[in-house]
């Protein structure tokens, strides 16, 4: 098992190299770089700007710049953000907790909704409960988060004034008040992201359950007199969760992508809003680093999906 994980991690290196190359080239081809503003700034003499460009190697050929970036990365130097005036790794670490908090809570909320609803709907297909769950699921994943997010803000912040609509990373409170305030301000983004996730996940869970529920071994379990609840949990769910867990793990990178939008709406100072603001301000090192982190997440969650699959399904041995 550990050998399998190690081998998969080694295989990931060439693909990450490939991804970084593509990202780097695309960013290099895009117009603008961190110093393009200096050229139009009348306070900076052209020769100073040129000297700075030369110092940071911005006019070198693209392959030299890539190799330079690569060797720096290999030494743990993620670069320097000219806009925020701090190291990129420190910047990302500063922004990451908010993102993880919101995304993690949203995923937990989604699972807490999707699994019970999906399982119950599948045990009574085409019942009233199932029909209602289906309709809500369709509504849920048809409405984009930027719409529901703004709707929530309108209802719960503007009209009812129950919840803050700007997420603050430095709450002026301590102890239990701080905790409560953190929860209060996360309710809307977590609900928006979590409900959106829950909608599609409910559909996955339901269909995975329905695939298993009519199989022969479920009849065998019924013939043992185990009772509906035990048959469903031990025999049906255990098998139905195999594809669901894999799907959820594979979806995680997309969840991070979706969080970018949600973070923009609720002004969450997370990694997603960092990416957007960096793109807008031509902060290439940050854009490069954040997109590269996303790429690593994709590779990592693929590996997690495969490991989970092998763990859940004894027919698959990871060698």
């Amino acid at each position: 098992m550990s050998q399998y994980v190690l081998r998969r991690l080694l295989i990931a290196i060439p693909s990450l190299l490939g991804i970084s190359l593509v990202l780097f080239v695309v960013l290099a081809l895009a117009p603008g770089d961190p110093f393009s503003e200096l050229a139009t700034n009348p306070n900076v003499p052209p020769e100073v700007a040129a000297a700075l460009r030369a110092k940071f190697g911005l006019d070198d050929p693209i392959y030299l710049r890539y190799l330079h970036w690569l060797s720096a990365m290999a030494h743990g130097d993620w670069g320097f953000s000219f806009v925020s005036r701090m190291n990129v790794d420190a910047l990302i670490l500063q922004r990451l907790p908010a993102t993880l908090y919101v995304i993690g809570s949203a995923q937990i909320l989604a699972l807490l909704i999707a699994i019970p609803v999906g399982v119950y709907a599948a045990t009574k297909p085409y019942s009233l409960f199932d029909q209602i769950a289906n309709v809500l699921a369709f509504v849920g994943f048809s409405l984009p988060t930027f719409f529901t997010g703004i709707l929530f803000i309108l209802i719960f912040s503007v009209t009812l004034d129950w919840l803050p609509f700007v997420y603050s990373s430095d709450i002026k409170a301590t102890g239990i008040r701080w905790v409560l305030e953190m929860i209060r301000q996360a309710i809307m983004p977590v609900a928006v992201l979590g409900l959106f996730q829950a909608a599609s996940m409910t559909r996955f869970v339901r269909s995975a359950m329905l695939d298993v529920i009519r199989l022969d071994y479920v009849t065998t379990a019924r013939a043992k007199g185990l009772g509906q609840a035990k048959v469903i949990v031990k025999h049906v769910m255990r098998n139905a969760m195999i594809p669901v867990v894999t799907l959820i793990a594979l979806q995680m990178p997309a969840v991070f992508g979706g969080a970018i939008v949600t973070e923009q709406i609720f002004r969450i100072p997370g990694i997603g809003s960092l990416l957007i603001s960096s793109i807008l301000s031509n902060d290439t090192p940050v854009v490069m680093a954040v997109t590269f982190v996303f790429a690593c997440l994709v590779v990592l969650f693929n590996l997690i999906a495969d490991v989970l699959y092998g763990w859940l399904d004894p027919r698959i041995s990871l060698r």
Partner: protein
Amino acid sequence: MAPLLEIKGLKTHFSTDDGILQAVDGVDISINRGETLCVVGESGCGKTVTAMSILKLIAMPPGRIAAGQIIFEGRDLVPLTSNQLDEIRAKEIGFIFQEPMTSLNPVLTVGEQIAESLRRHEAVTKKQALERTIEMLKLVQIPNAEGRVHNYPHQFSGGMRQRVMIAMALACKPKLIIADEPTTALDVTIQAQILDLLQDMKERFGMAVMLITHAMGVVAETAQRVVVMYAGKVVEEAGVDELFGDPRHPYTQGLIRSIPRIDLDSEHKTRLEAIGGSVPILINPPVGCRFAPRCRHAMSVCTEKEPLLREVSPGHRMACHLGDTQLGAAP
């Protein structure tokens, strides 16, 4: 003595988009204690649905027991809820299914799957359940039972899985085993082993066996009594010797004629006879005898009036309009 299980006028219907499918339409079957009863008939004749109806293992909905009684040890099972039936499932009536490849849960070890039945019905500790499970696996002749008990189904061959299924069905020592084509999915050499094993177990535990099959060879080898089903109805019922020696219903005769014979010498060898046509679709079945369209003896009355099951000799019943003398002389 009252029979162990008595099915009276069972009707199991399925609602489909095209109408009500009358899969089982008024079936009477009884099984005595310790006896092996074979239920034969071709695919789609309602054998499996009849068996599954006993413990309500059919999907409901769309399935529904429309009428009839299923009396097991003097108690009618039809009005019982699924929860009440759970007390009878596996403990009183054990089930062996057709497909050993798909009837075991792939993510649980065979030991867990056998033990959970014991733990459900008997007050045993986890350790006792494991010991009993190993004992059962030894009984069904699985080599190295102590080691194999922790294996998953995919680590067993088809024949071994069917042995596991038998061990599972027998674990709580039920009074009746319903085996739904237990050998159909296995190859011929294994089939004989499984049937022998089933026979051994039956003798050891003294239980009754309801063996569903479409192989007449299996019937001849194992049964004491035979019920022949066609299109959701019982068409003939007799002791095994009587049925093979003196089949009365044209369908039974056809079934027996379709058994390949290797004991005849070359001059007596004839082409294997098949029954022409196929089982009718049981949505709005035709009035009269359901076998009439395929019957070589069909008369005008056959398409007008349904033949009722009547006794032609003691313990031998059949449903056909043909008189016994006429049919006895038929080719």
